[in-house]
């Protein structure tokens, strides 16, 4: 999967208009956020890459653009050989091949864990009832939430819910899994179980692009880390680069802050 020269701005309509020079509506001009400015990124099969950076820098929006859940203003997204940004492409088909895990999980609240995972298999892939059930159960077993199969999202812990979210994304065997801060909305004591699940997926050779600040995890599984700030990729390199001596000051500062925080947390535990 590849992103080429992606641009994306968002903000209120008025604010966007103001940027285009409509003098009447320049009040909201400040609220325009440039989430991506000429961002290019390539992930090959089996790669695990990790995007990190300050909050509000546009990482999540960029990730959504990769899945075409947000449509980029400019630039191309390729899934295999297929360009998703030309008009007329069947985006639903493309999204079915991309697993997406949300920061705030977004399980379907009216369905059980099994129902959540089965939905795409039944309605998008048109599998038979038995086949869909079998594959959904496989996925739920893989993320170790078999005890939640018939529970509704409201009856699960955050960690369980996020693992069901991961099962929902992997059950259809997507070409790539995009994960948007899968642990940052969870209580600290629940992140471990989700990280373990991600570690298992990494071991199986799944292709993943993860937005995360879980540094020990990143160091362990990521082939490449991408430091993202103010809508651009500032620096990329293997974890060793970032943990030892990043080239840019911004990355250096950010790493220091985040490593201090991580050590503090570990000392507390």
């Amino acid at each position, binding site marked *: 999967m590849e992103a080429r020269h992606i641009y994306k701005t968002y903000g209120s309509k008025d604010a966007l208009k103001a940027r285009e020079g409509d003098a009447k509506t320049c009040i909201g001009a400040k609220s325009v956020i440039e989430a991506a400015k000429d961002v290019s990124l390539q992930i090959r099969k089996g790669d695990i890459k990790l995007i990190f950076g300050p909050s509000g820098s546009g990482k999540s929006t960029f990730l959504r653009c990769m899945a075409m*859940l947000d449509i980029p203003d400019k630039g191309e997204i390729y899934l295999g050989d297929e360009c998703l940004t030309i008009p007329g492409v069947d985006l*639903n088909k493309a*999204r079915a091949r991309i697993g997406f895990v*949300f920061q705030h999980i977004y399980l379907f609240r*009216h369905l059980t864990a099994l129902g959540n995972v089965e939905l795409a298999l039944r309605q*998008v892939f048109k599998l038979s009832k038995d086949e869909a059930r079998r594959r959904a159960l496989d996925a739920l077993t893989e993320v170790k939430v078999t005890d939640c199969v018939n529970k*509704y999202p*409201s009856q699960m812990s955050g960690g369980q819910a996020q693992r069901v979210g991961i099962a929902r*994304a992997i059950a259809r065997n997507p070409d790539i899994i995009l994960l948007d801060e899968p642990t940052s909305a969870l209580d600290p004591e629940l992140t471990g179980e989700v990280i373990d699940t991600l570690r298992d997926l990494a071991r199986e050779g799944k292709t993943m692009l993860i937005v995360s600040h879980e540094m020990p995890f990143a160091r362990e599984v990521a082939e490449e880390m991408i430091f993202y700030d103010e809508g651009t990729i500032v620096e990329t390199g293997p974890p060793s680069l970032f943990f030892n001596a990043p080239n840019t000051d911004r990355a250096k500062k950010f790493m220091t802050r985040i490593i201090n925080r991580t050590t503090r947390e570990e000392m507390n535990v």
Partner: protein
Amino acid sequence: MDVWQQFIILLEGVPLTLSISIVSFLIGIVVGLPIAFIRVYEKEVSFVVDAYEKIFRGVPEIVLLLLFYFGLGPAFPSTFGNAFFVAAFVLGLRSGANQSQIYRGAIRGVGDEQMIAGMSIGLSKWRAIWHVMVPQVFNFSTAGLGSEYALLIKDSAYVYVIGLAELMKRAIELKYSANDVVTPFVLSALLYIAITFPIAFWLDRWGNRRKKKLGL
């Protein structure tokens, strides 16, 4: 004519009152639900449904009933010539206009994230609406739908103007035949209450239970 006899005559009108209300309610769901989603997700064509909502919410039912029955009835005897058809048509479309407002609020309550999650697994917009949004929208709408149903029971009283022998029509006739201006209306008032609240109450309770269970 004693009270009991009057009561029996009125009671025989209840099935018709109920069927007018329930059929209209169902028409309201079938019409109101898509319209709500069109207004939220297909803004370009909203003006069409906007016009429909304005007409059916703005014109009194009694005017529409008379207009369709006496105006269009002679030209289309098998449809608009049929009083039950006109009653269900007018009350149903009026309810659809109201219900679409209820559903629009509910769609906002369910939240756009659910829609995005639905699209993220490969569902098309309308499939995501059907499989993800609609079931939850109903859970959010039950209180509003309960009062909408109560409104329909009450509005069904207007259809006496096109001659359907429902509760109201029978009460008016009893006023003359029993020569009693109070009893028929007291009795019909009691009957209206009796058929309104059990269903509205049940809807509300079902909704609250679902909401609690799903943590909405």
